[in-house]
């Protein structure tokens, strides 16, 4: 009984406001990384990868593109779980 109670106590992550704190911390970290653009010496390979915050923009855009286009792909290829009857 006591171990169950211990299991069922509310965890820090169970509270939505704490999840929001984590997301805010991520925003702060991202902002700091953009600010860091002014403080290091770049050596781009091609040129376009040396533009301001290239990796940040690319990471955000690539991620959105992947997830949203995968959602589209799902419409085409999703079938019932036991489609192959195995």
């Amino acid at each position, binding site marked *: 009984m006591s171990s169950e109670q211990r299991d069922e106590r509310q965890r820090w992550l169970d509270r939505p406001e704490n999840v929001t704190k984590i997301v805010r911390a991520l925003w702060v970290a991202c902002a700091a990384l953009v600010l860091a653009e002014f403080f290091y*010496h770049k050596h781009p*390979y091609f040129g376009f990868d040396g533009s301001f915050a290239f*990796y940040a923009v690319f*990471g955000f855009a690539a991620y959105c593109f*992947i997830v*949203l286009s*995968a959602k589209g792909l799902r419409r085409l290829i999703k079938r019932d779980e036991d489609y192959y009857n195995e």
Partner: protein
Amino acid sequence: MSEVLLNPALLMMLAGLVALLLPKRMLGVWAVLVPIATLALLIALPEGSAGQVSVFGMELVTRRIDGLSFVWSVIFHIAAILAGLYAWHVQDRVQQVAALIYAGAAIGAVLAGDLLTLFLYWELTALSSVLLIWASRNPTATKVGFRYLIIQVISGLLLMCGALVMHQQTGSIAFDHIGLEGLAGWLIFVAFGIKCAFPFLHNWLQDAYPHATPTGTVVLSAFTTKLAVYSLARGYAGEELLITIGAIMTAFPIFFAVIENDLRRVLSYSLNNQLGFMVVGVGIGTELAINGAAAHAFAHILYKALLFMSMGAVLYRVGTVKASELGGLYKSMPWTTAFCIIGAMSISAFPLFSGFVTKSMILTAVAYEGHWVIWTVLLFASAGVLDHSGIKVPFFTFFFHDAGHRVKEAPWNMLLAMGITAFLCIGIGVYPDPLYAILPFPVDYHSYTAAHVITQLQLLLFAALAFTVLMRKGWYPEEIKSTNLDFDWVYRRLLPRLTTALLNGIWAVDRAVRGAALRGLDSLVAKANQGLGPGGVFSSSLSTGAMVIGVSLLLAFYVLFSFYWSA
């Protein structure tokens, strides 16, 4: 002959056979001690070729230790030790024996100096590894195992055909640079490509690995595909075609991984994507690129094993690894959660984790050769890795909605195996020099520059930010029970349907032809019946007189005929 036996691979396989006789409680310790001992032997052995055997006038080289084969043999040994520890509690003789023989065969293939030896070990990896799938002991796993075995054996047969053609044309079966020239080169290339899960040849991987036992998948993930990468690095380094193939491999599995529900299948797609990076490195073929491919294979075997271990522990405790049925497990399995996150950060290539110091070697080598399109594709794929392996696997298993599973933490041996693997993942990331020291070529590469750390963190954290935005907007695809069609639909559905349709067609034509022939015969019989039947003209009865007249007429005709003929 003793020189032939002095081979880590052979000894490991012999130990596998010995395990057939050991008491069951000894199997766990045996599976750990044997690879430790053979690893010590490998390190003690001198470089160079040894263990030559002559078969039908062909010179076989059973043990070749050089820069390339050494690094692969070392990581295969480490993988065997960790997998053995992870499966310590499994008292299933089939699995423990199969795992030792499989690991031994993979190491034997890496040490092979000729194509015939390579072929023998190549097929042996297929035959031994399928037992790890069949050991799940359910009808689905049996079917899947057969599909896996057929494809693996086809790969071996192509390799053998290629080797025979090569022997006929050049008189040699040495396993050195082969190149994409002539029939032999292409046959062997496709054989390697099947095992390396090239696009359209890849589905055996996503089909089979999720159906092996919880511990079996960890073993499977280490050897077969990385043996293929080794073989490509040995035989096809610098082949431009590999750059394109590898880039496609990094990109397309991402989309399937995002929407896949079975998390071991997600990891299989992710494995496919990681192989792409190595294949690109092999295709570039410069010293930095080959070093990068080898280093990435080394790091990848560890973090991929770690991820499969964490999912295996979940499967072992909860009984499922379907994302739609999981969530909140960090409350019950905190250690497994931590180890999974370390694996996830390693594969995502966060600074201080192993992927950071190995994947970047490949990207740098690509950039040095001026392939900006390929470089951009690899960067794009890196963002994708963060999604499916970095975020999706840990997040939907251990966090997100609590699915209410209250289970025990993983057994001690699983935790220990995960702990050591996690330690190695971080160790390589923090201090890569020992790994760099055993790479095939001298390393002049520094991963920890301010620019590299900042740009990599930008890429990863902004991608993670995109995840939070998509989640909060409700745009992230939810985890649902489903089967997603992939290319295997062609041979699991389309081809059987076409075959059935073809057979039905042949059957219909056959029936029509035989029907027409029967009807023709029937009408012939009916016609004959009109003349010859009981009511027919030839069956009517005639008087004796009429008969005599008939005979007389016939005789008269005969006499006249013979008269005129002789005249």
